Each structure stands twice: as C-alpha cells, then as structure tokens.
C-alpha cells in the first residue's frame, strides 16, 4: 500500500513537503495572530455569482475508445480519472485515436486552456471540473492530463513555487490585507504548475492554467502548446520545480480548509477580481486581436532562467 502510494507519488516529494510544512507553520502563525481580523473577515459577505460553463459536453456513447493501462503516467491518480465517461467522451470528441498524438494533445491543450476559467476553489476531481467550467490551475492541469492519459499519452504535473509578477500580486494578494499577511508569511507557499505530455520521446510542456484573456489583462504573452511560462512571464523559484505523476495527498483537504473554513470572503474577493481581469483582457483582445497582441507583447518580455551552480560553496 505504502509502496503504491510512493510509486504513484501520492506522497509529496521532499522539497514540496518542506514548502508545505514551512508554509503551514507560517500560516498558522498568521492565523493565530490575526484571530480578530479573521473573525471580521469571516463575517464579511461578498457577493459572488458562480460562473456558467461556456461549452457543451459531448455525449458519451458506449464502446468509445479509451486506453486503460497501469503504467506510470497513464493510470488514474488523485483527482485525475481518465476513465470517467465525461472524459472519455471529450477525448474522443477532440479526436483522440484519430489525430496524430501531437495534434491531439495540442487540441486538448487549447480546449482546457481557453474554455475553463480560473477561479480559486478547493481541489476536486476532473469530472466536476469539466462540468463546472472553472477551477484553479491545478484543476485545469488535471483535466488536461486526464484527456492525455485517456488517449494513451503519458502525462504528468510540473509544479513549482513562483516568484509572482506584480500584476499577479495585485490580483491575488494586494486586494485583501489578510491575504497579504498570508503571502508575506508564506513566501514560497504559492504553488503553480503546468502539465507535461510525453510524445515521441520528449516531454512537452502545456501551460493550460491561464486563459488568453487573463494573460492579455496582465500584459504577458499567450502561451502556446510546448511553451513554458517559466521565463516568459514569471520565474520559478530555482530548485522548487518538481515533476510528479500525481497531485499529493492532503492538498485537497488543505485547500478546502484554507478556502472554505478560514476566509471565504477573501476567496470571493479574489474570484471577483479575476473575473474583472478576464473582462479587461477580453476587451484588449477584441480591440487589437490575439495575433497582434501576441506579436507586440512578445518582443519586450523575457527573463533569463538559471540552473543553480554550487561553484566552491561547501555545504556542511
């Protein structure tokens, strides 16, 4: 049992565990210190209207093809069941088993990236995510991975802590003083990620998290299939990148606790803010068109990436 958990990487890797433990401690400290503020925040009512899904779900027909394998990166993992009817139907609808693997993966990428809106909420499975039409970047990555695995393409998570760009800071952090305290305390607790799919001997990155509208609103390029958002619009904290088959156990519970029990008003504020951002991005893209937007913004935005070197440092 434990071996299986380990093998499937349900147990978070060491560096992620370290991040979480540190983040957990810092967070508890902030929470305890701010009980009063927290109570106020909990009482606060923020109007928030959940989004409506903006796409149709293809119908499932018995006998639809799906790859069921127990191989690593193909099998179901936490919150990511590629065998679910809804997933199989969508995979077939998107051309699994018809298109060549690269083309299919790219179309699955575009579907997830463009159609599902970012909203902050506790983790849940790919089926509710698909039915709902929104979720966090982790929800979206899971959906992309499930679509790949259902079509027999190995897929995994690439997770990391990010150094936020300022616009993100404004959206997520600055809007809420409590959130800012969290942020300052947490430092590295901000987990973000992308999907990766294995085609022709290579892992190809899929930045499904941000929709084009949101990228336009924050002035960053619209990432394409195979394009890493690291280096383009933010930096991964070096050393924090981890590639895993599954989301770790405990993340779902933790996110539920954080968002539902501690400060639902903060989450509602953030989500409203994201929706405003999406609206702003939509206007920008309508005005100048996606292609022109991309051309303009790409010229100016680059960030070097680094691989850590030890040089002559001695670690005791």
């Amino acid at each position: 049992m434990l071996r299986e958990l380990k093998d499937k990487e349900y147990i978070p890797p060491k560096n992620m565990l370290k991040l979480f433990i540190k983040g957990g401690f810092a967070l508890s400290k902030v929470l305890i210190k701010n009980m009063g503020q927290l109570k106020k925040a909990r009482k606060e009512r923020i109007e928030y209207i959940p989004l409506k899904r903006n796409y149709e779900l293809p119908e499932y027909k018995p006998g639809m093809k799906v790859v069921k394998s127990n191989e690593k990166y193909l099998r179901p993992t936490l919150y990511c069941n590629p065998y679910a009817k809804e997933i199989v139907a969508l995979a077939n609808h998107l051309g699994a088993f018809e298109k060549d693997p690269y083309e299919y993966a790219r179309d699955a990428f575009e579907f997830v990236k463009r159609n599902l809106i970012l909203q902050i909420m506790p983790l849940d499975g790919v089926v509710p995510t698909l039915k709902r039409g929104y979720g966090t970047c982790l929800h979206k990555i899971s959906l992309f991975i499930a679509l790949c695995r259902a079509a027999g393409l190995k897929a995994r998570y690439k997770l990391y802590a990010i150094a936020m760009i300022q616009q993100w800071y404004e959206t997520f952090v600055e809007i809420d003083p409590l959130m800012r305290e969290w942020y300052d305390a947490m430092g590295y607790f901000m987990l973000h990620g992308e999907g990766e799919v294995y085609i022709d001997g290579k892992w190809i990155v899929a930045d499904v998290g941000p929709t084009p509208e949101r990228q336009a609103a924050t002035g960053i390029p619209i990432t394409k299939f195979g394009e890493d958002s690291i280096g383009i619009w933010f930096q991964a904290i070096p050393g924090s990148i981890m590639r895993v088959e599954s989301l770790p156990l405990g993340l779902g519970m933790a996110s539920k606790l954080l968002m539902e029990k501690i400060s639902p008003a903060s989450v509602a504020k953030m989500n409203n803010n994201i929706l405003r951002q999406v609206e702003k991005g939509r206007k920008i893209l309508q005005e100048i068109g996606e292609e022109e937007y991309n051309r303009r913004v790409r010229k100016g935005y680059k960030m070097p990436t680094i691989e850590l070197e030890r040089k002559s440092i001695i670690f005791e």
Partner: protein
Amino acid sequence: MIEFKEYIENLNKRLHNYIPDPATFTPGEEGVFKPLDVYNHPKKEADEYKFKAIKYAFKHHYENNSFYKKYCKENNVTPDDIKSIDDFNKIPLIPDKFFKTYPSGKEFAMWLATIYTGELPNIVIKKSDDHDDIINKFNDAGLVISYSSGTSGRHTFIPRDKRTFNDTEYAIAKAAITMVYPFWEYDSYGYLLMPNPFKTNVFAGKVCSVYFDAVKDVQVALDRELKADLIRAAMKNNLKGRIIRYAMQRENKKMIERIINWLRENYKKKNKISFLGAPFILYFVMEELERNGESFDFGENGAVITGGGWKIFEGQRIPVDEFRKKVEKILGIPPENCLDLYGMVEGNGWMVHCPEGHYLHIPSTYYHAMVIDENGEEVAYGEKGRFAFLDGLAMSYPSFIISGDEVRMYEECPVCHRTSPVLEPEVSRAKGDEMRGCAEEMRRVLSMDLGGKDA
C-alpha cells in the same frame, strides 16, 4: 575659486584607497577614474571610453557567467555582434525583478553563486544558515552582497566583489562632488540621513560609507540596524507592533532634535555643512524648525544631496522643487547646492542633478542609458518609457538591466551645456510596479507612527 582640475585631484587624493592601481584598470574603471568630469567629457572621447567599457564587460560576463551566456544564446547575441555603440541595443537586458527570484535555504547560497560572474572563494554554509548568515559569510569571504527591498517583501540581492563596490562608492562620491563644485572640501561637517553604513547590508546605506572618507566629521541619523524583521513587526497592528512604533516615534523625535542641535552648533561656528541621504528626514527637520519659527542662513556654506525617492508619507510626495524652496527658506541653502541623486542597487551609474537646471545627468564614460517601450524597443529622445542601462563597471554580475522606473531622456540638458544626456528631474515607478526607492525602506519605518499600518 579652486580650479576644477585641482578640485578633483584633491578628491582623488582623499579617496586614494578606492582607486585601484591604474596599471590594472578595467576599461570601465578607466571611464570612471581617468576623466575629470564623467558628466562633461568631450563627446567623442566619452563614447570611446564607454564603448570599450561596455564591450569589455559584456564579453567578460558572456564568457564567465553561464546563466547570462545561455540567455545571450537564446537571444542570438555574441560579443562579436557588438561593433559600435549602435549595437548596444542588442545586448540582452535582464529585468530587475530577476534579482528578486531567489530560493530559500542553502539554495540561496547557490543562487548567489550562480548569478555571480566567475569563481568564488571557498564559502562554508551550514544547514541552519538563514539569508543574513549566508550574506555575512559571503561578505566575510571578501564580497559585498547588498540588497534593497520592495513592498512585496522580497529583496533585490546583488553580489558585488570588493573592487566593484569600491568603484561604485568612488563613482557616487565623484558624482555629487562634481556637481556641487566648488562647494566640496574635506574640512567640513556632514550629516548622513541614512542607516549607519557600517551596520547595514542595505545598498543605499552601505554605499554611503565613502562619505566618511570624503568629509572630516560625519554624523549618522539612524545608528540602529534596520532589520527586515523589525520593520515587519512594527507594521503589525498588535500590541508588539504598537510598542515598537511607540519606541520608534520617541527615537525619531530625538533624532530630529539631534539634527537641529547639530545645525545650531555648526551655524554658530560658521562651519561648512552637508546633508546626504533620504529627503524626508530633512523634511521633518525643516517642518519642526518651521513650527518653532527657527531658520538659518548657511548660504554657500551648505549643501544638500538627496537620494532614494520623494515619498513623505503613504500617498504623499513632495515635489522636488518645493523641497528645494523649503531648503532655501529654512536653511538658507541656495537651490544650486540642493541636488538629487538617482541610482539603484542593480547598477553602478549615478545620475545627478546639475546645479543649473536640476536635470539628472547620466555619466557618459562607462555607463549607457536607454529608454525602452513596452515592446522592448528603444524610444526616441523625449518619449516616455522604462529606464534601462548597460553598466561597464560591474565585474561580479551582469549589470545590463531593464528597470521598472518610468523616465524621459533627452540627448542634451535643456539648461546647462554639459555633454551628457539627461533624465527629467524626477523619476517615478512605472504603473503596476512596486514602489522601491532606497528611502522607501526607511520611510516605512519612520512614517509608521503617523499612519499606523503602512503598505
């Protein structure tokens, strides 16, 4: 009046410890130490200095810094592509935010090692070392790691070697002293409106240690160490925060009293005085004097060199010319002796007001400034954009930076006739970027007693 040549030679004598053996000058150092006036050198010769300095620095970092080399390769640029100043815009720029993206723990040490160009001395890092411990170990090994901080709570760390740091200290002293000509003389009295340079790793404070070598008697406004933890604790709206704020408030009152007493004493003795540092401290001093109906008339015997931003409280900026008027009214120091400096932790170029027009002159013999639009392209003179620069002095890290500061640059000063390009008198952060400024950190501490919680 003393000849400018003799004036600078006196400075070089005073600061000889900062000047390396001329036989070993890098091209960047030649551009700093050889010209008498880095803001008014004949254009053609200044360009020659500048081209050599920046080409050399670019080649040096390309060859000795693996992350920068990789970045250049991604941008398809090699040192051979830089054939004249017109090619400078091919040199890949690093966003200033890059220097905020450091990991924690022992990886922080590796990160510093990675952005550092060339080999490092042996440094032993323990598991339990935090950021401050790691910085101190690097510094013990002969480096000068300094930082500045922003509102997002993340610092900007820059690794300098001792020599680069000496160079930049000399450069800032020469900048100020050149522009206040003929004011400067060693036998005078200074007040540093900054944390004690010998007790801080904050760049804006540390770089001011040269003040102690250029002026006979220097007092320090803030003698305590400004620790990030303390600042954070003071900003909390709890009992501990209130106690710290109360203590600070008392300390600030005392600080202002000390400065006023110092002014009285030196005025009585007819001493030559100068202030260097954060404008808002002097602003508070002047406010207090004004309340008491007190004023001085230092005249040509006084100078004020400010730096680090013009925010007084949250959401309140003093216009620079209003500040100068106040300095003239309360201290009797003429506007020609009240100049602002603009620089940043990532670079070693110092922009300084000319006394005639208060435009920020850019040194033209080792440093190349550009203004970049949102597409990453250079804009024409007079148009707004982000300030970017190529620094020929930094040997320990690639100092080819695009900043978040919004500026307008002019090819010539609209007022004086120096040969260097200028920026408009005031610089602001581009929209969406965080406020930084080196006075910002102190402002946060010192203005807390007024508004309680500050962002």
